[in-house]
């Protein structure tokens, strides 16, 4: 057990270090700007006085390391500064939207994970059958589709032609869970279609890899049913790679929401990020980028730790 703890601790330390470096990059990216932020945001017409005032307000007159320290300390305490575009408090701006984004990602995960796993197991079970080949071509194609293509096809069929679901997901705080889920159905299904292919293919590949090993052949010769071999013998050993791919896809979901949120005008963090990028509202972009990156890194870290903890060789050392 000591070995596992040590490996997990190592990963956690590495993850924290990565988070720190990433926060540094996100903050320092602004220094790439030719001239500085004040000139870029205010444009050509700005007078020297307004530029100076703007600099003072953003504390651009302080050295970069002081600003970084203050930014990070504020961020960790939930104080993310003010938006350049409308002077609103960023934490307030982000709060509800983050919850919406997580709701959408979670909804998509609840549909896609069980579906992808069972399709993957079925494809491995009936390998090289018509079902397997159809799924193979279908997933290869769906990986190649841009998200907005999938989204608009769904809107065309389910919102415009049949009117079953709303094409615009305007969720607010006052909605109940069911109404909220109903309005979020189309974006969630879009995300599902985007991530399901990768998860399913990995599940299938992991299982098929194992099916070639001698102990599976033994089980086969013993006369066990195929279903039993897959579920009882192959699956426990395939768990690590499968969990890994599931969590990595969840990480992808959190980021993949950006385009989908824009298509469905869903009031989430991705939409805020895109709006702020076009307004060049740097503090908001930095704050949302930091939240997205941190979620992504933490989920990848979880994948790492879980795949260590489900490895049978490490769990039952000789």
């Amino acid at each position, binding site marked *: 057990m000591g070995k596992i703890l040590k490996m997990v601790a190592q990963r956690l330390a590495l993850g924290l270090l*990565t988070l720190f*470096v*990433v926060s540094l*990059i*996100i903050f320092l*990216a*602004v220094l*790439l*700007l030719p001239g500085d932020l004040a000139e*870029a945001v205010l444009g050509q017409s700005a007078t020297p006085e307004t530029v100076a005032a703007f600099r003072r307000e953003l504390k651009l007159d302080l050295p970069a390391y002081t600003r970084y320290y203050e930014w990070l300390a504020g961020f960790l305490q939930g104080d993310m500064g003010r938006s350049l575009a409308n002077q609103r408090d960023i934490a307030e701006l982000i709060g509800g939207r983050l919850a919406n984004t997580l709701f959408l990602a979670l909804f998509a995960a609840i549909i896609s994970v069980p579906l992808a796993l069972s399709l993957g197991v079925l494809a491995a079970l009936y*390998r*090289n059958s018509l079902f397997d080949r159809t799924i193979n*071509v279908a997933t*290869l*194609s769906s*990986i*190649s*589709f*841009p*998200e*907005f*293509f999938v989204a*608009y*096809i769904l*809107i*065309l069929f389910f*919102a*415009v*032609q049949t009117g079953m679901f709303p*094409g615009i997901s305007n969720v607010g705080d006052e909605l109940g869970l069911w109404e909220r889920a109903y309005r979020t159905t189309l974006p969630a299904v879009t995300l599902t279609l985007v991530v399901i292919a990768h998860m399913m*293919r990995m599940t*299938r*590949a992991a299982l*098929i890899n194992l099916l070639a090993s001698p102990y599976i052949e033994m089980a086969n010769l013993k006369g066990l049913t195929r279903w039993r071999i897959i579920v009882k013998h192959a699956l426990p050993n395939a768990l690590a790679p499968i969990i890994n791919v599931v969590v990595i896809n969840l*990480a*992808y979901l959190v*980021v993949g929401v*950006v*385009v989908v949120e*824009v*298509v469905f005008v869903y009031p989430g963090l991705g939409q805020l*990020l*895109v709006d*702020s*990028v*076009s307004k*060049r*509202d*740097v503090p908001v*972009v*930095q704050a949302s*980028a930091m939240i*997205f*990156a941190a979620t*992504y*890194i933490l989920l*990848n870290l979880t994948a790492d730790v879980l795949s260590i903890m489900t490895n049978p060789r490490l769990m039952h050392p000789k």
Partner: protein
Amino acid sequence: MGNGVALLKLLRQAPWSARFGLFVIFLYVFMAVFAPVLTPYAETEIVGAEYEPWGEEFMLGTDNLGRDMLTRLFYGARNTIGIAFITTCLAFLIGAVGGFLAAVLGGWMDQVLARIVDVVMAIPALIFALLILTVVGTSVPALILVIAVLDSTRVFRLARAVAMNIVVMDFVEVARLRGEKLWWVIRKEVLPNALPPLVAEFGLRFCFVFLFLSALSFLGLGIQPPTADWGSMVRDNATLITFGDVTPLLPAGAIALLTVGVNFVVDWFLHKTSGLRDEQ
């Protein structure tokens, strides 16, 4: 001549999916190269009212500003594919040179490059790109550079892994003992042996860059108007969907078709060169 015959034979043996993919790629390249000859109007010319329906004069109707949809689709092939292609080439140049250097030199060079790549890859690419584009603004050179650098990290990983297996071979050792220079070793010994996996990766990376660029354009942060581009064409005409008109789906479908085609060809190529497929 012998080469041509072998190529024809290879093509005849290719599965239908690969042939379909090759056909799509040739069609798109043809569209891109001959766009000015094939189209009835100019790229940014306003030729009619907004959102004209499909008909004699405008085969696929007009867009939100009254420009001919068909014309813009053809020019879109030129711009979007062109920029994606240049970006992919640049990403490969950076990634492959970095990866080979890391593998051949080893030591601290390898460590430094690998750690930089680890950090860049820890940030989701879309978020990173949005952050940098906020700062430097969305111009075409900036787009190409940002996407190429972000994407080169994946090329670096592959190039390094492949080259690692090559640099331990005897012929590289011999070349080094013979006193060949670093650059010569990379070009004459490592590169030829690393080529097949890199070529397959080129196809996949192109798809990724192409989708990435389209997504950025769709968000309004990629290729800027009035340049015709498939991603922004979807964005500009999306309102038509709510009236049950499929026109905005055409550029989106064009993107999907090309990536499907390239994926099919890459799948076949991988199968041919190394038998490297998931079921083995």
